[in-house]
């Protein structure tokens, strides 16, 4: 029996017929298994959702408690039977609560890794390699030019600039779930203990991370009493990247635009976005990590989803792995 008889892409997402469920469906379905809380993977409106407790909490924060009719949490490493298959969740190292989903059927195993990274992250559990026959990998940064530098070194760039331009506010664009908290945690780790100002859209998620034991130190909303621009001189302000193009950013004195993202590796890309201080911080694997992971797991087949499938497919061919791009739609390339 072929692997894709029991797990294959459909317009609604990756579907498993013998278990009658979808993984990270992009449309409302009867039964959804969800890898992590980013909006393009976790959507509201399913009848029943199985996910880690933290992912369920994050979905409730974003969409309200009623985002699905039934929810069920599952701990990492626990086997659960659904129809004719059994599934288990394993840490993916992407954001708080993120998981790879292993699907077992008739003695074979497929692992859908969702989004994942191998770099150390103080805000979530590290990726755990799971032996399998088919490994489904993301390919967001699957080009040899993406090689993420040490994250501590990137945070140091930010701190150096704050010391160099103490009269300017440093606006750090960071995705509201995961990246923002990681940036803040790394700043704390580097010894920065000033109040960090955050955009209103991040408050709930930062509070949630703190409640889960991730220490983010003193945070305050980046609100402004009229006429007191000077309040933010020398401050670090974290907000969603979209906010910095918005009128919201006008409250800060002569701001320096920083952006924490894997895309910042390419200078032209930073320049086009008007970013002055690119911070190459990604919650995805870089090229070397993708290759190391495939070699480590050494699956019979590699299935490649969202991103630059062609480069990773090429590498698999050169290195004698059976590879196939899965054309899954609905996942945002830019989501970082």
């Amino acid at each position: 029996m072929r692997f894709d008889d029991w797990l294959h892409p459909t317009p609604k997402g990756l579907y498993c017929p013998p278990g009658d469920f979808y993984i990270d469906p992009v449309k409302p379905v009867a039964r959804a298994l969800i890898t992590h809380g980013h909006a393009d993977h976790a959507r509201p409106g399913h009848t029943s959702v199985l996910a880690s407790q933290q992912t369920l909490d994050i979905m409730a924060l974003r969409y309200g408690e009623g985002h699905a009719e039934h929810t069920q949490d599952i701990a990492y490493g626990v086997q659960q039977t659904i129809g004719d298959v059994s599934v288990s969740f394993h840490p993916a190292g992407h954001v708080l609560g993120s998981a790879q989903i292993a699907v077992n059927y008739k003695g074979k195993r497929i692992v859908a890794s969702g989004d994942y990274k191998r770099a150390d992250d103080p805000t979530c559990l590290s990726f755990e390699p799971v032996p399998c026959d088919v490994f489904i990998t993301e390919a967001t940064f699957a080009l040899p030019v993406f090689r993420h530098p040490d994250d501590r070194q990137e945070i140091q760039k930010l701190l150096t600039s704050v010391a160099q331009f103490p009269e300017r506010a440093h606006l750090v664009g960071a995705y509201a779930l995961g990246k923002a908290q990681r940036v803040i945690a790394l700043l704390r780790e580097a010894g920065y203990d000033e109040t960090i100002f955050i955009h209103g859209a991040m408050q709930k998620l930062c509070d949630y991370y703190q409640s889960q034991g991730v220490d983010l130190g003193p945070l305050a909303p980046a609100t402004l009493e009229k006429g007191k621009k000077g309040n933010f001189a020398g401050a670090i302000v974290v907000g969603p990247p979209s906010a910095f193009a918005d009128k919201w950013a006008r409250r800060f004195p002569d701001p320096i635009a920083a952006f924490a993202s894997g895309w910042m590796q390419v200078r032209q890309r930073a320049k086009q976005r008007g970013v002055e201080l690119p911070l190459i911080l990604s919650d995805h694997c870089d090229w070397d990590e993708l290759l190391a992971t495939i070699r480590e797991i050494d699956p019979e087949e590699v299935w490649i989803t969202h991103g630059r499938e062609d480069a990773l497919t090429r590498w698999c061919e050169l290195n004698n792995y059976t590879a196939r791009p899965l054309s899954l739609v609905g996942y945002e390339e830019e989501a970082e």
Partner: protein
Amino acid sequence: MRAFSHLLDRLILTPQRNGKLRLLKDYFTTTPDPERGLALAVITGQLNLPSAKPAMLRDLIQSRMDPVLFALSYDYVGDLAETISLAWPEKASPDLPNSDLHLSDIVETLVKTSRRETPALVEAWLDRSDSSVRYALLKLLTGGLRVGVSARLAKTALAQLGEHDVDEIEEIWHGLEPPYETLFAWVEGTGPRPENDNPAPFRPAMLAHPIQDDDFTKLDAGDFGAEFKWDGIRVQASAGLALDGTLKRALYSRTGEDIARAFPDLMEALDADMTIDGELLVLIEGRVQPFNVLQQRLNRKTVSAKMMRAYPAHIRAYDLLVEKGTDLRAQPFSERRKRLEQAVASLATSRIDISPLVNFDTWDAVAAARQTPADHGAGVDADAVEGLMLKRWDSAYVPGRPKGPWFKWKRDPLSVDAVLMYAQRGHGKRSSFYSDYTFGVWRDEELVPVGKAYFGFTDDELKEIDRFVRNNTINRFGPVREVTHSQEVGLVLEVAFEGLNRSTRHKSGVAMRFPRIARLRWDKPPAEADRLESLEALLPREDRV
């Protein structure tokens, strides 16, 4: 090299002048000799390193990496040096030296390496660098840093290290060689001012303020001389005797960049020990050519004989700074002018002539000369007159832009009513504002873009335009928004500019010089904005079709 590469990384993405100055100053302060001096030489374009060809770099990376993966990478990044710097597969060998590569090692080694040995050398350097250093190294080797820092800006940063004026640096710059250790010592207060032993050095230029209406009531016309301000490039032609008795010659731009190599025709004509301040022009059959003709000769490293025949270069002299080794700059303008007339007359060339004085006794007469230069001495070259210069007869020649001795009185700027088509977000203080505008005029039923402007408006006007852009966006392209620009709805901008040329680069076929937003015409419907024909009527006669 690591500090230098981080500096370049920051400069590339820092749009503001003050931000760049800060980065440069911090780098100069924290980096030792000779490293910082070589960096200064690289940024100011004073180092001529044997260069590496792109094909060689391509071969290098493809010997380490699958060509298909390289092609996919290059296609994504778009810049060869950057692609290689990012994708370079490091050899995971623990015995590679982990120490920082120094600019001085690179410069010294490259100079004594043959072309055949270069690839192996570059390969070894790439192996011991991180991606930021690799990028700096490859940009250094392929020539052209493109970090948006002029030589003048780098010298300004240096001057600010020791609270000096940048003109003090210009005064000695052309006698110094990399790595400029004496220069750094002087600005930091640990050494004497370096002597300039260049026989043909650059003397920082004297500049003028625009004259204001109320200035005339305070000033006496009898104290001033007036001359035409020609529409070319302000230059300084400098010749002086070297110790061996030979005449050394140089041609400098207003900012002290030596451009002599592109003007051998002029250098040959400058056959006497003198330094002239004047305007670089192209003259054909005795007539001054429009600025875009002169442009054929600008920004070139060398020039062909054909080029020199087709576009003969010329200097129209305004002032005399040094003659036969005597510095005349402290003398009054009246005296310098007298000596200039004699000096230019003594040259056996028609390539250097004198800019005529305008005769007048009242300010009204000056105004008339500005209005109709053709009738006041400019004759057939009146199109090439940008305005008038007013200089106090008793003024010394001082570097910079002192208030009072010299004024410029430009002809009224040209203006056009154009329609806002695209807007782009600015940087720094303007980073949340749409502050760069592309505007167009009508050709038949459609608008064609004719230029871009990003200043001229007040802060309040900026807010108004920004609001208009946000409320009328019809398309987005990255940081650029296209706004509504129909016959009925749109924003009309009165755009002032200094001149107009034919251009093959713009769809409209014209290019403006120095455009800026003069007024917002909320009152005017877009349909009544100007048409391309009315702009074409402003082209210099030669350029009209």
